[in-house]
């Protein structure tokens, strides 16, 4: 079984090929250029370099968010297009699940934190099993909250916490303030999201037969669109042009 993994949820863009639990190739870029320009060239590059043709693919796993709305749509639209065209299954994986999975060996709480703009973070809290064959168990909903809220939950739960993701650094003072020694901050080079993690989780879902449909897979936004503000703006502009 060979699976493509795709992640475009944050500024990190990553594509990978995983074959029966073995990473065959992975390309991860953490730059400002748009995912629209980066994703397909990266995928084509990895497949060519690994000598794999499209017909040798058994499924496409994609990180569906939460994350940048635009980013996850690029990933999901691309993954659906690919899976549809190849008549192969698509598997949507939560970006937070994939980040937590990357820290599978931790037997502590695991808390991926992504910058959600507007002073908030996308996050969820997981209990790590400390074993590579058992993915971390999610204890909360997928959240879009102020950092204080998730830190408060972590204080309540007690014990050490492994923290990773692009929402950690901007909130470091608050994290250290509230969790102190209990916070285990994963270095960027170790904790950067990798599509191999997405593909590995996709592989497990494929084995369990829990698949998504290329016609209907949707991003996991967590947050609704800000239409109320837009509507209010527009009505105001309509009245006073």
């Amino acid at each position: 079984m060979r699976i493509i993994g795709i992640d475009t949820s944050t500024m990190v863009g990553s594509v990978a090929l995983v074959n029966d639990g073995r990473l065959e190739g992975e390309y991860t870029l953490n730059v400002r250029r748009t995912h629209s320009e980066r994703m397909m060239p990266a995928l084509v590059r990895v497949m060519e370099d690994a000598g794999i043709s499209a017909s040798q693919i058994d499924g496409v796993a994609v990180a569906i968010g939460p994350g940048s709305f635009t980013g996850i749509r690029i990933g999901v639209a691309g993954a659906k297009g690919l899976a549809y065209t190849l008549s192969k299954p698509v598997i949507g994986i939560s970006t937070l699940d994939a980040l937590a999975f990357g820290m599978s060996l931790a037997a502590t709480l695991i808390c991926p934190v992504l910058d959600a703009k507007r002073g908030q973070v996308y996050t969820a809290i997981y209990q790590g099993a400390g074993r590579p064959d058992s993915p971390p168990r999610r204890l909360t909903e997928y959240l879009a909250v102020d950092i204080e809220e998730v830190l408060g939950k972590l204080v309540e739960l007690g014990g050490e916490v492994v923290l990773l993701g692009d929402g950690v650094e901007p909130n470091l003072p608050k994290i250290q303030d509230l969790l102190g020694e209990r916070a285990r901050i994963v270095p960027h080079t170790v904790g950067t999201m990798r599509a191999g993690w997405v593909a590995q989780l996709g592989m497990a879902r494929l084995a369990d037969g829990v698949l998504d449909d290329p016609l209907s897979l949707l991003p996991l936004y967590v947050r609704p669109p800000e239409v109320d503000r837009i509507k209010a703006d527009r009505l105001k502009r309509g009245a006073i042009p």
Partner: protein
Amino acid sequence: MKGMSVLFDEDALVLGIETSCDETSAAVVRGGKTIMSNVIASQVDLHAKYGGVVPEVASRKHVEAIIPAVDTALHQAGVSLAELAGIAVTYGPGLVGGLLVGVSAAKAIAFGGQVPLVGVNHIEGHIYANFLEHPELKAPLICLTVSGGHTDLLYIPAFGAYELLGRTRDDAAGEAFDKVARVMGLGYPGGPQIDRLARDGNPRAVELPRALSQEETFDFSFSGLKTAVLNYIHRERQSRKDGPLPEELLADLAASFQAAVVEVLSARTIEAAKEKRVRTVVMSGGVAANSLLRQEMSGAGAREGIAVYYPSLVLCTDNAAMIACAGYYRFRRGDRASWSLNAEPDLRL
């Protein structure tokens, strides 16, 4: 890639994808002229309650609707992916979130299916809507593209070559229709509503400005006209102590507003044709569906010996058949997109 050797002959099948505004559309067109399918998933009801397109809401709907639209278009055409000679996708201008969904899906389908890909300018697509129904059309042409996002007057000396003669300096014509309809309480989209109401009104009842009529220009401006309509409504409402406006007054206002827009559009378009010594005018875009604009432009053209063409109603709206058609001609010229094709919201012709 297999596609590189494909000849884009008269039987070549092109899949078109269009997601630049609030319609998710996919179509299959044979040989640049025969529409095999043209699936349009409209989001108009979704945006109606906001009185206009909300970009984030549109983007979310596009990513939901894109693959079903492609799947339905292929099924209705009775065509498999393997039979496609190429895929054409709108990459601008438009709302960036929607464009990105179409471009991402199109690239993935092209890669997975080993089919060549080409990017199409949305405005060019609207122009080619005319060729779908009138394959006999020949350059040189003058083209007026009028929609909710665009008001462009173009000189087309030869296929694929465009000279922008004029464009709106503020609101697009369709935008003016939407905004005026909103303050008149007519709902969204405004164009068809005003068109319908205007049939019962007197187009000379309310005196409204014709912008830039003193200037030697092919540009347009509709914000002054829009403001005049709004001021008129405020005055009338005040004189009725904020009571409702009578139906006849609204019909007269709709007719007068529509006449003002149409007069400027048709006069400047015919003037451009005369200046460039062109005998053919084509119209495109959603506002080209306006019944008065069709009638006035045809009449003005006939008086000057200029033939006026416009697409059928369904091809005036955003649709992927026109993108497939424009893409077919791009393919024939040897155009191909790379895997790094990006959305360009401000793309110019």
